[in-house]
C-alpha cells in the first residue's frame, strides 16, 4: 500500500491500567451542540467579503482530444472576473506521493484537476470561471467554446484489458512485466504476491472451487459536496478553507501543483460533512487559488451533486477470480486470486490494498495473488472505506461459504478451523500480532441472533473482514493554561466528529484532570508539524498517539518546573492523579502541585508549559470483524429485505464505545447499500446516467433494521491505550454476507454486483429452468 512504513516509526507499548475517563461516553462532545443547532461551519457555510463564485466547465464526452478552447466570450460577460484553463496551470513531471491509502502521480493529478491534451471521462474539468454570482458563473460556462475530437472510449475493466481496446495513454506500458512490453496498454501495472506453492497446495485439496466475480464502481456518497474557498492575498499567500481529510497533504499538493513554496500555502480544514476516503484528493482547491490570484478576490467553489458523482472519485469496478482448495475435513490448502481493478482515467487503484486483504483472515501456507491496475474512461478512483476490500471479500467469503457447505461444516466453524491468529505469516510480508479474529467468530456463534428462527424464503449468511490501521506522520500540541485547563491542538481531521472527544478523554486521562477541563482544537497547516491524511482508520488511533506523546511531554515539563521549585532532580518528581509529587518520602516533604499551580509559576521557573509531538506512528493494530445477516427474498420480484444484522468487531480497547458502535453501524449500512443497489450506470456513450441521489440508490432509513453490534477488545500492543483503527472493517463483510444469506434463503449464488432485484429474479428463473431440466433428466 502507499509508501513503505518507516523503520523509525513510533510504537508506545500498551499498558493495562485502571482507566477513569477512557471508555465512558461523554455527552459533552466538542462538536455536538454546534452541529445540532446548525452553527457548525462546513466549507460551503463560509463566506468571505468580496468573494466571487467559481464554477467548472466539464467535458460531456468520455474520451476526446481537446483541439481548442476559446474563453473570450466568457471573459467578456459582465460580472466575470477570471477564467482559467490548462494554460493557467504548469505541467507536471511524473512524481509519486502518498495521499491517504492510495498513491498519486502529480503528472496525473494536474491533468485530473484540469484537462490538458485530452479529456478522459464524462465530467473531466476543462475550464473554470469566477464571477460575481452563481448565475453569471453558470452563464459564463455556456459561453466557453471547446472543440473536441471525440474518440472511442472504454468503460468496463475486462473490455479495457482486451488487446483491441481503445488505449487511454500512449505512454503507458504495463509495469511489473518483464521484459517491458512494446505496445502501450490500459493495464498500467501488474502485481504479484506469493507464499509457498499453490500447485502443491491444490494437489492436496479434495475440494477445489473456482469462481469469477464482477463489481461495479460505487461512490462514498458523502452528503456534503466538495467545497473550497481560496483567498490569494496581494502578498502571494494562498489561504484555502476546504473540506478535506488531510489539510497538510492538500497543502503539499497545492504547493506542488501551482509551483508555490509550501510556506506560502495555508490550508484550514473545515468541519467535514463526510469523506470516507473521497476527500483525500484535491479537485477544486488549486482551481480556486488560481482564480483568486487572477481576479484579486476570494473565490468560493461548491460542487453540484452531479459533479460529485461524475468527477470526484468512486471506487474501482472490478473483475475478480478466486480459486481455493481444501481437504474434506475443512482445512484450506491453497488460495489463488486474480484481481483486475480499474483505476479510472489515470493509473493507481486500490489494487495493492486489495492484495493485502484478500486472504488475510486465514492462516494459509500456499497463496498466490496476481493483480492488474487498469485505466478506463471513468473518473480517477479514490479511496472508499477499506478501498479494494469489499470486492475481494465478495469473492473469497462466498467461496469459503461454498467450501464450508461442501464439507458439511458450519460456515463459522470452517473459518475457525482456518483462522488467522497471532503469529500467522501473511503472504505480503509481516506476521500478525495479537488479533481478535477468533474472538469475533466465537462471539458471533454464541450470539442470540443465531437462535432466531428463519421462515420460508429467509436465509442467514456470515462473512468476515480484515483491515489494517495506518500510522504515518502525526503532530499535536498540548498547551497548559494558567487556570489548569489543557488545550490539545490536533492535526488529523476529525472526520466523524468523535475523534476530538476521544483525544480529550485521553489527554484528561494522561494529565489526571477532568474531561471538561480539556479543550480540543483543529490546527491548520501553520499551527503544527505535518499530519498525514486521516485515512486508513488512523484518525483516533494515530491521532491519540500524538496526543499521548504531547501530553507526556507536557507532564515532563511540569515535573521539571516542580523539580526546579523544590530544588531536586527532575527524576525525583513523579506525576500522579493530576499532580506533581516527590517520587518518594526521601526526596522531601513537598505539597503536590496541581496543573494550575504549576502553570502559574511556570514562567518564573523557565517558561510556559506545552508538549509537542511530531511522530511517525507505526502501522499496525489490524482489525477483524464477523457479520451475520438474515434476509428474506421475494421470489416473484427479486426484492431482498434485510431482516436482522449483527456485527462483531475487534476495536482494541474501546475509548468511546458508543461512537465506535455508530461507526460500525454506518459502515455496515454503506456495505448493505453496496450489496443491494448502489452502482455507477453508464450509457453506450460513456456518460454517467445516474449522477444523483435519485438513481444512485443509497440506503434510506426504511431500508435497514437496527444493526446489533458487539465490541471485542484485544489491545493493540503498540498503542498505549490499546486502540486499533475501526472505521473501515465494517464495510467489508456486508456484500458477501448478504450474498451468502441469499443463497441460504433461495439457493442462488450471485456473483455479479449489485445484487439488485432484476438480477435476483433472473437467477431464480434460471435456477427453476435448471431444476426442471435436471428433474426431466432424472425422470428419464
Amino acid at each position: 500500500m502507499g509508501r513503505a512504513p518507516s523503520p523509525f516509526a513510533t510504537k508506545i507499548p500498551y499498558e493495562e491500567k485502571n482507566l477513569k475517563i477512557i471508555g465512558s461516553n461523554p455527552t459533552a462532545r466538542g462538536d455536538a451542540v454546534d452541529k445540532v443547532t446548525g452553527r457548525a461551519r462546513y466549507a460551503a457555510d463560509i463566506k468571505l467579503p468580496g468573494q466571487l463564485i467559481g464554477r467548472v466547465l466539464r467535458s460531456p464526452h468520455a474520451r476526446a482530444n481537446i483541439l481548442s478552447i476559446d474563453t473570450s466570450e466568457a471573459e467578456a460577460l459582465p460580472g466575470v472576473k477570471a477564467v482559467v484553463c490548462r494554460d493557467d496551470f504548469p505541467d507536471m513531471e511524473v512524481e509519486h506521493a502518498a495521499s491517504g491509502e492510495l498513491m498519486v502521480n502529480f503528472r496525473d493529478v494536474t491533468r485530473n484537476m484540469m484537462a490538458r491534451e485530452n479529456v478522459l471521462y464524462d465530467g473531466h474539468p476543462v475550464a473554470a470561471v469566477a464571477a460575481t454570482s452563481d448565475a453569471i458563473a453558470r452563464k459564463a460556462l455556456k459561453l466557453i467554446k471547446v472543440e473536441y475530437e471525440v474518440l472511442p472510449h472504454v468503460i468496463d475493466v475486462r473490455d479495457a484489458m482486451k488487446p483491441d481496446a481503445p488505449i487511454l495513454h500512449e505512454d503507458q506500458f504495463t509495469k511489473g512485466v518483464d521484459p517491458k512490453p512494446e505496445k502501450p496498454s490500459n493495464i498500467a501495472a501488474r502485481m504479484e504476491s506469493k507464499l509457498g506453492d499453490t500447485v502443491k497446495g491444490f494437489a492436496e485439496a479434495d475440494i477445489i472451487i473456482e469462481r469469477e466475480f464482477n463489481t461495479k464502481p460505487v461512490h462514498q456518497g458523502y452528503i456534503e459536496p466538495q467545497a473550497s474557498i481560496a483567498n490569494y492575498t496581494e502578498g502571494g499567500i494562498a489561504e484555502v478553507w476546504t473540506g478535506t481529510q488531510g489539510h497538510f497533504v492538500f497543502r503539499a499538493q497545492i504547493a506542488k501543483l501551482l509551483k508555490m513554496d509550501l510556506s506560502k500555502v495555508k490550508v484550514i480544514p473545515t468541519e467535514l460533512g463526510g469523506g470516507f476516503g473521497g476527500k483525500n484528493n484535491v479537485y477544486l482547491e488549486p482551481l480556486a487559488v488560481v482564480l483568486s490570484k487572477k481576479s484579486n478576490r476570494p473565490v468560493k467553489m461548491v460542487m453540484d451533486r452531479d459533479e460529485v458523482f461524475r468527477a470526484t472519485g468512486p471506487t474501482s469496478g472490478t473483475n475478480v477470480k478466486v480459486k481455493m482448495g481444501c481437504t474434506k475435513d475443512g482445512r484450506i490448502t491453497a488460495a489463488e486470486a486474480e484481481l483486475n481493478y480499474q483505476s479510472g482515467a489515470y493509473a493507481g487503484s486500490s489494487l495493492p490494498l486489495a492484495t493485502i486483504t484478500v486472504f488475510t483472515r486465514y492462516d494459509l501456507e500456499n497463496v498466490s495473488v496476481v493483480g492488474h491496475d487498469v485505466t478506463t474512461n471513468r473518473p480517477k478512483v479514490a479511496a472508499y472505506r477499506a478501498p479494494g476490500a469489499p470486492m475481494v471479500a465478495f469473492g473469497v467469503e462466498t467461496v469459503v461459504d461454498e467450501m464450508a457447505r461442501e464439507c458439511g461444516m458450519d460456515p463459522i466453524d470452517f473459518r475457525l478451523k482456518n483462522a488467522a491468529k497471532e503469529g500467522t505469516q501473511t503472504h505480503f510480508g509481516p506476521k500478525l500480532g495479537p488479533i481478535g479474529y477468533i474472538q469475533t467468530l466465537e462471539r458471533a456463534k454464541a450470539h442470540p441472533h443465531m437462535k432466531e428462527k428463519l421462515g420460508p424464503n429467509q436465509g442467514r449468511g456470515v462473512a468476515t473482514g480484515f483491515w489494517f490501521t495506518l500510522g504515518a506522520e502525526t503532530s499535536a500540541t498540548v498547551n497548559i493554561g494558567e487556570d489548569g485547563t489543557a488545550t490539545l491542538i490536533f492535526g488529523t481531521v476529525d472526520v466523524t466528529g468523535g475523534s476530538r472527544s476521544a483525544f480529550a478523554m485521553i489527554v484528561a486521562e494522561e494529565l489526571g484532570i477532568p474531561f471538561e477541563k480539556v479543550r480540543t482544537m483543529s490546527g491548520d497547516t501553520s499551527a503544527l508539524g505535518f499530519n498525514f491524511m486521516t485515512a486508513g482508520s488512523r484518525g483516533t488511533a494515530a491521532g491519540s498517539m500524538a496526543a499521548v506523546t504531547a501530553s507526556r511531554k507536557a507532564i515532563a515539563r511540569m515535573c521539571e518546573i516542580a523539580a526546579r521549585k523544590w530544588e531536586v532532580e527532575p527524576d525525583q518528581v513523579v506525576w500522579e492523579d493530576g499532580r506533581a509529587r516527590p517520587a518518594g518520602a526521601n526526596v522531601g516533604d513537598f505539597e503536590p502541585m496541581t496543573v494550575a499551580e504549576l502553570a502559574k509559576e511556570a514562567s518564573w521557573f523557565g517558561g510556559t508549559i506545552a508538549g509537542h509531538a511530531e511522530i511517525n506512528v507505526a502501522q499496525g493494530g489490524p482489525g477483524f470483524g464477523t457479520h451475520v445477516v438474515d434476509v428474506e427474498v421475494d421470489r416473484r420480484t427479486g426484492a431482498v429485505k434485510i431482516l436482522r444484522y449483527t456485527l462483531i468487531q475487534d476495536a482494541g480497547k474501546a475509548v468511546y464505545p458508543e461512537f465506535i458502535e455508530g461507526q460500525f453501524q454506518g459502515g455496515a449500512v454503506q456495505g448493505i447499500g453496496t450489496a443491494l443497489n448502489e452502482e455507477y450506470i453508464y450509457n453506450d456513450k460513456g456518460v454517467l446516467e445516474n449522477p444523483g441521489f435519485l438513481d444512485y440508490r443509497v440506503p434510506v432509513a426504511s431500508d435497514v433494521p437496527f444493526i446489533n453490534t458487539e465490541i471485542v477488545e484485544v489491545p493493540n500492543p503498540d498503542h498505549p491505550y490499546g486502540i486499533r483503527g475501526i472505521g473501515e472493517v465494517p464495510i467489508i463483510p456486508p456484500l458477501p454476507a448478504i450474498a451468502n444469506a441469499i443463497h441460504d434463503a433461495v439457493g442462488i449464488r450471485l456473483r455479479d454486483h449489485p445484487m439488485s432485484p432484476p438480477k435476483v429474479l433472473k437467477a431464480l428463473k434460471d435456477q427453476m429452468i435448471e431444476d426442471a431440466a435436471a428433474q426431466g433428466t432424472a425422470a428419464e
Partner: protein
Amino acid sequence: MLPGVIYKGRQQSEHVNGEATVTDMRYEAPETLDAAVGLLSSESGVAKVFAGGTDVMVQIHLDMIEPDLIVDVKNIAEMREVVEEDGAWRFGAAVTGKELMDHAGFNAAWPGVMDGVRLIGSVQVRGRATVGGNLCNASPAADSVPPMIAADAVASVIGPDGRREIPMADIVTGPGQTSLKDGEIVVSFQLPKRPPHSGDAYLRFTPRTEMDIAVVGCGVNLTVDPDGTCTAARVALGAVAARPLLVEDAARALIGTKLDDDAMAALAAAASAACSPIDDKRGTIEYRTEVAGVLAQRAASIALERAKS
C-alpha cells in the same frame, strides 16, 4: 415598494447593489383561472405552470428547462379545494399530497388513489407535490396516475378556448408529453360516485423501500356483488410503456370471476402482455414485463379486500 407587486424591468446584466443579475425568469401568482390562462397564452417564451414545483424546480436545477415565465397557480381557489358532492369527489389539481393525506373523507373513499399519492417522493416532497403536477409532468412512472386512471377520473381543463373535460387516461401521450393545448391548465379532477362493495389499490415496485421512481406501477379498481363476483374492474399500469396504460384485457380477466387462481393467472398474463417497456437505468424490459403481472395480482387482491370490507 408594495408587497406582492411585481416590478418588471430590463432583464439582462442589470446591476443591483453592485451585483449583476442575468435572470430571464419572471414569476407571477395570479388569483383567477382567467388571469392564469391569459398569462400562459400571451407568453412568447417558455411558460411553466407551477404548483408544488417538485418536478419543475428539479428540471431548472439540472438545466433541462429554462422557463421565461413561472405561473404559480396556488392562489387560485378552485384549484385548491377538496369537495364531496353526493358521494362523488372533486379535488383541485394544486391540492398537495399532504393535504389529500390529511383528508379523512377522501382517504376513506379512494384508498387506492391515496396509495399512489403516498408513494410520491418523501414526506418533504408530498408537502408540496400535487396530482396535477404528477400528471402533467407526464412521466410514465408517475405514481398517482395509474390509480386515477383505474378510478376513471376525469380532468377538468381550462384554456384560451374555454373549459373541457378529458378522461385521465387520455392526458399523457408520451414521456413528458400531454394532450393539453398551449395555454391549458388542469384545474381539478372529478372521481365518480362508487357503487357499494368497491375497492381500489395501487402498488409499485422500487429497488429501495422509498424515494425511488417506480420500476412498475399498477392500479386496480373493482366492484363486486354481494356474493363476491367482480362486476366491474379497471386496471392501469405505469412505467411499462411510453405512457400510463389502461389495460382492458386485464379488467376482462377479472369481471365475472371471484378472482380465483385462473382469473389471477389471466390477469397477470394480460398485464404482462400489455407492457411495451424499455431497458433503462431503472429496469429492464424482461423485469418490468414479469413484475407487471405480479403487481397486478397483488393490487387486485388488496382491492378485493377493500371492496369486501
